[in-house]
């Protein structure tokens, strides 16, 4: 299969590979996919609790080149965005940006799921903290 230049670029120089402290209350972690399906993405965001802006994002991905490129792209996109903006991210934007062929669309779906799941995790943590404070 031929890859688009953008997929190769992200694959060879992935942005934001790494790990944030998942115990940090300002960090949200999304772990999606399954090893048996051949893709697992872990996407983490660090959010400023005052402004609700994503200050940092990291990923690690087990998957094909398109899966790695999709997660790399998403970490780049969500940085500096508010949670609501990040939540509005659609997989079709990833498909378009990376020129993913139909057989690789599930990689973009997974990346969208990963960011949503990270945001949900962060919000859950925040409300749990609030409850504990009250």
């Amino acid at each position, binding site marked *: 299969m031929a890859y688009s230049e953008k997929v190769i670029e992200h694959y060879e120089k992935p942005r934001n590979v790494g790990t944030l402290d998942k115990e940090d209350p300002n960090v949200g972690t999304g772990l999606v996919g399954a*090893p048996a399906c051949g893709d697992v993405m872990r996407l983490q965001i660090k959010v400023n609790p005052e402004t609700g802006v994503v200050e940092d994002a990291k990923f690690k991905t087990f998957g094909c080149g398109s899966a790695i490129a999709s997660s790399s792209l998403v970490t780049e996109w969500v940085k500096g965005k508010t949670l609501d903006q990040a939540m509005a991210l659609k997989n079709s934007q990833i498909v378009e940006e990376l020129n993913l062929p139909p057989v690789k669309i599930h990689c973009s779906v997974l990346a969208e799921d990963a960011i949503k799941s990270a945001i949900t995790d962060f919000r859950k943590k925040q409300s749990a903290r609030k409850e504990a404070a009250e």
Partner: protein
Amino acid sequence: MAIRLPIYMDYAATTPCDPRVVETMLPYFTEKFGNAASRSHGFGWEAEEAVEYARTQIANLIGAKSDKEIVFTSGATEADNLAIKGVANFYRNKGDHIITCKTEHKAVLDTCKRLERTGFRVTYLTPAKDGRVAPDDVKRALTDKTILVSLMLANNEIGSLHPIREIGAITREAGVVFHCDAVQGVGKVDFDVESMNVDLASISAHKMYGPKGVGALYVRRNKPRVRLVAEMDGGGHERGNRSGTLNTASIVGFGKAAALASLEWREDAQRLMRLRQRLRQKLWSELEEIFLNGADDPYRLPGNLNVSFAFVEGEAMMMAIKDVAVSSGSACTSASLEPSYVLRALGVDTELAHSSIRFGLGKFNTEEEVDYVGDLVVQQTKRLREMSPLYEMHQEGIDLSTIRWAAH
């Protein structure tokens, strides 16, 4: 010496023609272009003579008693189809049961599936973890309605060799026709239709340094004489088994490739085994959590090394070593998004099936190439593992099988 890229390490998919093969073929495109079926002039006789010579060369390679037992086809897929459907349709009144194995090539499995839709019953044996079928399992699966056993000599993905000799003894005693898809093993490991009691054997030229588009089916003519219903109707070529004008130039090349293999396969096999051992040594000495798929020597093709690199997806690996041509059992390399059915039949974890890479070494690979590929794979496995959440979890001591993954 600088290494030349890209490096071809996918000899199980296809092989380049040996230059000596090409040289032998060339006159048959131009001066010696006659139709081997033309009986009325020298052009035809010349082509026929060349075809018959090639037939002998191929018969010699597989130990066939008569060159009349070689039926030329367009390749091994056609040979598999002709063998299985040909026997099924000819012996239909005798029985309706076929035995094969889950790890056979699709040309065998899909042919069997088609026959099932027309009323035949097929037993798909499960191989052992190393990819080999147990002769006792074949014996147990036989019924008085069994007309055919079809098992491959060597597996294309994992290189495991079935115990063909032992199975041949069983089918001969039971009086059941034995077909062997010998594509991957002929010219690479010991194969002899007489001593192994093989009744039908499929061979392909392009897996043994000959041209693409030509293959053959060995059809036993004596003790027992095997009969087939032909697939192709027409001029009655190949003793009525396969109509169609013979592809003289390719057949000549196929014959030459067979002759070269007869002379050189033992030496090539030893050299390939050394190269494969060198690659294996390199990978195993520098990487943890890697697994060999298939059997160990002596039950493995000399040039095959199939490895699962845990926590690294196969297609990502192939992209990381893009100047090296290999293949993977990962789902991402197929349209179906299912990982290799061969590895799954062996009971390999789906995750590890996604992480498998097949290195197919061949006679033009060098030690330098093996060293280059070994270094590159070690380095890229480490890089991709640094990017893998599964590897991180593994290092933290998390048992991945205890996690409830969301299926997608």
